């Protein structure tokens, strides 16, 4: 599902490039990326999402060599292959929950899929929230909506960046459970970037989670 070799990224003005040890992740497994701030977690996530161009080395995600894609093709690939749950969720306040779930299709230039949205909202036990706006949701409800949005286009890979940021213990565990359940139900691979000890503790115990420390 994921593999890179000799991967490195050099930001303009930086003294030296960030180098990543070679890595491969088989199908049916998930990845926990650990590391302190500035360790290169976010850069690796951006490379995996095709938001940063591969400058050095090889990067294969879900069977695609990302270095070979044009910027436009990378956008299309990202929309079709990737789901993202960002650290701050980034639900649009101008839109209702249902409209937020239509964004992945609109971003790809396609029509909304209300059936899929209803299916995901029901699966995540938030079917009654479709007409609400993000500010009317609790933290837990907003997390579920962000996850539903990530799953809308049936991605093969879901990236979750610091999913426990600003969450208490209960919500942290709940979020992890949601991610793992959804991955199992949808048959997708999770890449979770976190330096939260609670997340590390919860995921380390699982056989299907590989760990990479940056």
């Amino acid at each position: 599902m994921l593999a890179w070799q000799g991967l490195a990224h050099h930001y303009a003005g930086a003294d030296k490039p960030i180098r990543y040890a070679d890595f491969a992740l088989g199908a049916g497994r998930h990845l926990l990326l650990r590391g302190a701030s500035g360790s290169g977690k976010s850069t690796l996530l951006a490379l995996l999402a095709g938001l940063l161009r591969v400058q050095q080395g090889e990067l294969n995600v879900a069977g695609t060599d990302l270095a070979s894609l044009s910027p436009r093709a990378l956008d299309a690939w990202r929309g079709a292959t990737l789901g993202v749950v960002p650290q701050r969720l980034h639900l649009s306040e101008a839109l209702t929950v249902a409209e937020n779930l239509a964004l992945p299709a609109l971003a790809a230039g396609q029509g909304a899929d209300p059936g899929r949205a209803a299916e995901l909202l029901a699966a995540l036990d938030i079917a009654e929230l479709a007409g609400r706006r993000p500010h009317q949701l609790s933290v837990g409800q907003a997390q579920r909506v962000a996850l539903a949005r990530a799953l809308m286009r049936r991605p093969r890979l879901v990236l979750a960046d610091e999913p426990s940021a600003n969450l208490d213990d209960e919500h942290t565990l709940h979020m992890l459970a949601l991610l793992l359940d959804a991955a199992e139900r949808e048959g997708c691979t999770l890449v979770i970037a976190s330096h939260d000890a609670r997340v590390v503790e919860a995921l380390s115990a699982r056989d299907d989670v590989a760990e990479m420390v940056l």
Partner: protein
Amino acid sequence: MIRLAWKYLWASPLTTALNLLLLTLGLAAVTFVLRTSAQVEAGLKRDLAGIDLVVGAKGSPMQIMLAGVFHLDAPTGNIPLATLDRLKQQPLVAQAVPLSLGDAFRGYRIVGTTPDYIELYGAKLGQGAAWTKPMQAVLGAEVARASGLKVGERFAGSHGLGASGGAHGDHLFEVVGVLAESGSVLDRLVLTDLASVWEVHEEHHAGEAHGEAHEDADEQRETTLILVRYRSPLAAAMLPRWVNAQDGLQSAAPALETARLMRLVGAGTEVLRGFGIVLLAAAGLSVWVALLHAVRARQGDLAMLRMLGAPASRVAALIALEALLLAGLAAVLGLLAGHGLVALLERLLAERQSLRLGPLGWSEAEWLVPLLAGALALLAAAWPAWRAYRLDVTTLLQAPR
């Protein structure tokens, strides 16, 4: 995308409403100027009706033209009726139509003339027939509508060209015809035989305190103005000079005087147009600031769209689309408001029995309004859209909103 842009547009209703108001006011002012310019020009052209020259008593050519062609100003005085024959004898004159003014009916001018005057405008009788003898009158369509007079009914004119003169109660006109609406100056005139005016005024003057007698009336007959059509273009160079050389006569070329009038009116039009452009510039600036603010406030949303697979160009297009939707709405409202203002002006002019702006409708120049709105929107959206295009997604998705 349109629906999404619409949602984002109204996410800040107060800002959007303010921008919409500014844009609408600017576009309404531009619409009003375009519409009235076109209508005034069309109205003037229609009333000119191929009249090449107006001959009146010595005075201002502009006044003669306004009095003789548009019936807006008082005439400069009377001229001998013999002038009509002398003009008709000129080989360069194709047609000469006399107009005798002096009385009015409820503010509508009573014009003593010949049936040629009706033909000059290609007007048709809607009811009845033309006059065949003095004290018979044909009403313009608007006069008939406003007064409610019908064929066979009688009315008295009042002295002077306004509505407040003393009535000629002992000289009643009989309505023998009503003109069909022509959209020309004839709609707001009462037409009668030349002799009717002499009959009313000779009696009127005879009855006045000074008692001045008109024993040799036939020789001293007067008319007020004469409308002339040329037989050949050469007449334009010769005839005005000939007229002006005659004692007490003054010529006015409607084409020249109308152009001069339009230049005078044009200054006002320019001011209004300038005002509209200032409003539009302010609106454009306001939309620009609002869009820049929106891009900044919505960086997370836009970055998320990029993250979800939207190409940078689609995200930039979303911003441009927001501006275009606002501009489209403002163009519709601006056109409606502009037309509303023109209708209001038309009503005011009708109440004052002044120049008509012509039928309401859509003038070609008005296509400029949505184009102007669209261009302004794209100009205002260019920089914000570029900012959206260049959004650094990696940084934004990590940063707190």
